[in-house]
């Protein structure tokens, strides 16, 4: 099954709408919203084991909205989104997590956060030693290991 067919067109529309409600685009931070085409494509391509839960979540969302989420007026859309998050249980949490995990690995987003666009391995990171003299007061404490007798 191709990534586009994992969800129905209506489900994909609702996913895009709710994703934009979670993380809208920002001119201030120069980042796209989570409804951005590349983020949405990443979500669909990597749904994998989360597919069933996300489908459940979108079904729940559709029941609450009664029609495409994007067609609701803003106040009603906010109310539905709030109810979705509070009543959606693990399925809603999975949908939100899937949106967040794809958004926060997007190059444009990581660049905006000042993070490097790479896997941790093989370069790793440098960890500063810190001020070891902070330990001096603890070293000055007398040994106080509780004995067994």
């Amino acid at each position, binding site marked *: 099954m191709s990534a586009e067919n994992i969800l129905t067109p209506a489900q994909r529309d609702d996913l895009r709408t709710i994703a934009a409600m979670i993380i809208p685009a920002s001119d201030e931070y120069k980042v796209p919203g989570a409804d951005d085409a590349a983020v949405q494509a990443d979500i669909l391509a990597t749904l994998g084991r989360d597919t069933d839960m996300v489908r459940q979540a979108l079904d729940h969302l559709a029941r609450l909205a009664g029609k495409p989420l994007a067609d609701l007026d803003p106040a009603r859309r906010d109310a539905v989104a709030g109810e979705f998050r509070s009543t959606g249980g693990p399925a809603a949490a999975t949908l939100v997590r899937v949106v967040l995990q794809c958004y926060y690995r997007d190059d444009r987003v990581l660049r905006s956060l000042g993070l490097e666009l790479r*896997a941790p391995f093989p370069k790793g990171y440098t960890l500063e030693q810190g001020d070891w003299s902070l330990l001096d007061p603890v070293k000055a404490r007398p040994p106080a290991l509780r004995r067994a007798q």
Partner: protein
Amino acid sequence: MNDPVDVLIIGAGASGAAVAWSLADTRMHILCLDQGGWMNPAQYPSTGRDWEARFYGDYSTSPNVRARPEDYPINDDNSPIKVVNFNGVGGSTVMYTAHWPRLHPSDFKVKTLDGVADDWPIDYDALSPFFAENDRMMGVSGLSGDPLSPLTEPAMPPQPLGRSGAIFGKAMNKLGWHWWPSDTTVATTDYEGRARCINLGHCTPACAQGAKASTDITYWPHALRAGVELRTHCRVREITTNEHGMASGVVYYDKDGVEQFQAAEVVIIACNGVGTPRLLLNSASGRFPNGLANSSGLVGKNLMFHPYGQVYGYVEEPTDSNRAPPTCLWSKEFYDTDLSRGFVRGYAIQFGRGVGPVFEAVMSEGKGILPWGADHHRVFRKLNGHRLAISAICEDLPEEHNRVTLDPVLKDSHGIPAPRVDYTIGANSAKMLEHGLARGREILEAAGATDLCINSPIPYGGWHLLGTARMGPDPARSVVNEWGRSHDVKNLFIVDGSVFVTSGGVNPTSTIQAIALYIADQMKQRLANLFD
């Protein structure tokens, strides 16, 4: 038909690897069966851009979420603490934080000292040489001289304090409380063929660098060179017994799913505090109707986790976040009994350096501190890279109603009944958790942290699986004797965390492996009359 072996070890994790290596010098024919396979570090999460997402999937700490073919399901619905583990060569050392404290001498005498639970039949001094041997094999970094911990002599220097450690150190000094760089099995210099740590991030979901000690890269290469045979993707269904009530071997499913019988003179179980009682209970027979080695009725009972209480918050200055091993310090300030606190025994404190961006987003959204909508970006930038966490790891006392049984419905992929865990947090542990959370808040406030949040108990915090086949001198009150041999079946040994009498208030892997080496040494000393 498989040729009989002298010693059959079930499980290639922390304790199975240690006992295999130790027994190898006997030149007996030693075979280890493990339900998992060898790990491929090139496929570990930190090698990819999706490294955080994989924690929610194939590298989840929960076997129920991970659901790899090597995993077995666990019904832990009736427990506020969920079992986490890893199955494969190396076992849960593949997926642990590498935090490396030992039980304290006083932990072996809780009845004598504090009037609760039971004393162990062995003491710290008996294990001391095996702690040292195990540290050498696993490779330990740290700083000798902690005034409140057993003396250790790490071969490598401690991890750097980093930004997070320095913030914690200042806060602890302000409060006048003990803290110390923790011993870890993260190599800070090249060590025995392992490359030094380069701070790939969180150590828990396996180390692509090989700096973190897991037994697939520490004990197993030595054991294999010494002639031990390791057969992977072999899941043991049951231990069989003969007409004399001795273990005769095991029935297992091989990598192709074909049922096999393996005869053995000695059987050693190293399957952890959930897998071991599961196997013993699944080995019930006409002679042992309540499960193997279970005349005491204690197989599966007295399950101890370490309930973890966690407080986290956010400081102004940047922390190390995900760019360092997750834990760097410990505190034993509240480790020993002080009855004025309202509970007996105590807890250690672990200090968390921070998390990566996906974790931060997912956890903060779940807690309700990261909003949806226009303000999301501003709040996320305030949180991300500024988190510090304090966790109290509480000593859990043995209670028989906390137990592992066989689930009547749930089965693994081979149709073997799965374990069911029934567990409640005892009154003493609950008071300890509250105390730990209050102290955690004080530490974070001393560090200047705000927006404090609590996870208590940490739900997916059931790493430490202890007590379900306890050791002791009395066959009516214990499953194995003081050197790990079953009271009921004279050629059956248990070497994992199941044999713990009490849990202490620290991560147990160092002690589990020291016990495995101690039991192996006891066996070697008694080879001529092992079954008497």
